[in-house]
């Protein structure tokens, strides 16, 4: 190795304690000056051993364990699991239950995307947008609470159906809430699309072409923002997506701006779908008559579209009261490779935005992020996410020629 190069090179480690994502993870970025030349990731801070845990719990108990793989997309994990188990038991939930599952899935997408928009704006240094989106997000949290009684883990799914009916009164609350949210989402779309300062942080940053996206196996809105037409809700409709289809939202540009717009357009589409379902809600039972306690031996896979992308479950039964093996593959892990690819060649200041652009969910993934600055001469310092975020915001302030004091 060239000694001068070694002297110039720094490794910047980040995490695992940081306040922005609220989750632990550890990254190491090699930098030459400002430019990132290499990146690696260390995961596993939140690895709890859930997959093994499922093997010592029965089929019903697992529903509640798997729901807690992730607090943001809890319903979709339970849905993937229930669909798999129902396939094993050879039963199918009644149409009304399927429609209610879809309503919950879309409400969850709304709360997840709004949450992401706020966190992403916070990392760009745009705290006003963060506070506004989180204020509006309370609307959908109220809806979820009214329908299910809990704000985060709603436990709407049970094996063979759903637990809660959507009454006319609840439907009215949902419709009223959606009207408000739709108006706000149009506003956010114009902010993300037109605000010059925000566009400097997003337009042309973290570019990923369609070919790269396909090669890296990227999923969800991150892939759709690179023009990959991949959405399980459209490709292989599950629950009630046959009867109430969603529109595939893609954009060809593949930068951070496109990832913002794809998610905001998906929000608008979710509002439409929920209205469609409520207007034409199938009547009938909420659960199947009988659900076996022991599942027939066999192997099934079940695929669903979580807010972050494709979620994949593999379930194997040997005919007992608990599963023999459950394998979960979450969308964040699929997308993590793209961060490492995209970060190379960019300024260190862009790293927070690139990372947040895939909407990482570490609790899904394993469940932790940190930067450690280590000089080759032995000095070492760990950056936390706050340092990196502050560094990113300061960098762009200087670049735009703004005095820090103006914005403070």
């Amino acid at each position, binding site marked *: 190795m060239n000694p001068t190069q070694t002297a110039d090179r720094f490794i910047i480690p980040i995490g695992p304690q940081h306040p922005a994502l609220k989750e632990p993870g550890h990254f190491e970025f090699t930098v030459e000056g400002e430019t990132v030349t290499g990146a690696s990731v260390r995961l596993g801070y939140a690895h709890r051993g859930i997959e093994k845990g499922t093997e010592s719990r029965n089929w019903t108990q697992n529903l509640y364990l798997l729901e807690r793989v992730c607090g943001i997309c809890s319903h979709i994990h339970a849905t993937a699991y229930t669909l798999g188990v129902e396939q094993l038991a050879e039963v199918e939930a009644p149409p009304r239950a399927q429609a209610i599952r879809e309503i919950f899935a879309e409400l969850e997408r709304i709360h997840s995307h709004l949450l992401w928009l706020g966190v992403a704006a916070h990392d760009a240094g745009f705290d006003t947008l963060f506070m506004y989106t*989180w204020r509006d997000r309370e609307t959908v949290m109220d809806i979820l609470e009214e329908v299910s009684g809990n704000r985060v883990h709603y436990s709407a799914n049970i094996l063979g159906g759903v637990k809660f009916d959507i009454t006319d009164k609840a439907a009215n609350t949902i419709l009223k809430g959606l009207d408000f949210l739709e108006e706000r989402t149009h506003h956010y779309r114009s902010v993300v699309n037109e605000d010059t300062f925000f566009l400097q942080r997003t337009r042309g940053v973290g570019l990923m072409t369609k070919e790269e996206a396909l090669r890296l196996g990227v999923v969800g809105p991150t892939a759709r923002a690179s023009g990959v037409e991949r959405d399980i809700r459209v490709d292989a409709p599950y629950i009630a997506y046959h009867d109430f289809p969603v529109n595939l939202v893609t954009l060809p540009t593949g930068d951070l701006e496109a990832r913002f717009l794809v998610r905001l357009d998906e929000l608008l589409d979710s509002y439409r779908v929920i209205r469609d379902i409520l207007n034409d809600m199938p009547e009938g039972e909420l659960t199947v008559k009988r659900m076996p306690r022991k599942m027939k031996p066999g192997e099934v896979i079940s695929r669903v579209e979580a807010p972050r992308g494709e979620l994949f479950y593999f379930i194997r039964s040997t005919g007992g009261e608990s599963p023999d093996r459950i394998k979960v593959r979450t969308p964040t892990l699929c997308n993590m490779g793209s961060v490492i690819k995209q970060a190379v060649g960019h300024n260190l200041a862009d790293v927070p935005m690139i990372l947040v652009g895939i909407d990482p969910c570490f609790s899904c993934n394993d469940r932790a992020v940190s930067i450690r600055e280590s000089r080759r001469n032995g000095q070492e310092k760990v950056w936390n996410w*706050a340092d990196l975020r502050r560094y990113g915001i300061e960098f762009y302030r200087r670049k735009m020629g703004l005095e820090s004091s103006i914005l403070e």
Partner: protein
Amino acid sequence: MMVEGSTRNLRDLLERVRNWALANSPWLVHYNSGSCNGCDIEILATLTPRYDLERLGIKLQGSPRHADVLVCTGPVTRQSRDRLRRIYEQMPEPKFVVAVGTCSISGGVFRGCYNILGGIDEAIPVDAYIPGCPPRPEAIINGVALLLKQLQPDRVDEIDNLMVEMGIDPHAIPQEEDLTDEYADPIGIR
């Protein structure tokens, strides 16, 4: 004798000054030691406009070296235990730990999984527990207010008024005598 007495007075005074400075505006640092995110987003929700915990003089910030209160979520995993201890050791005295959520109390639904050690108190001492899966933002505010009232008895009325403004009944909070369980200690050793 005189010297010892005055040293004690000085120490008491310093202690009072430190508690006074801390209780008016405690700074929080948050660490997720293996949580599912549910509690983390609820903590964030309490800081945003609907609930706005900052009205009680609380600020969430990044560095453990500036923090008075460590807010922990989730069960302790084998990999994050050392990190959690390090964060706790980096915090200056006096420090407090609040465990948010059922998992941080006992390990919750993950209890028995091979990588789980149990609740936060398996790794570091805990001062306040807030149960719930996840706790509602109101419950988190209650827990923090309880801690604040204990730290600074003079401000009890002020904090109660603020909570009424937030739409939370401050007297619905269980008092300390309600929480004492006489059967919890059958042998009677204190």
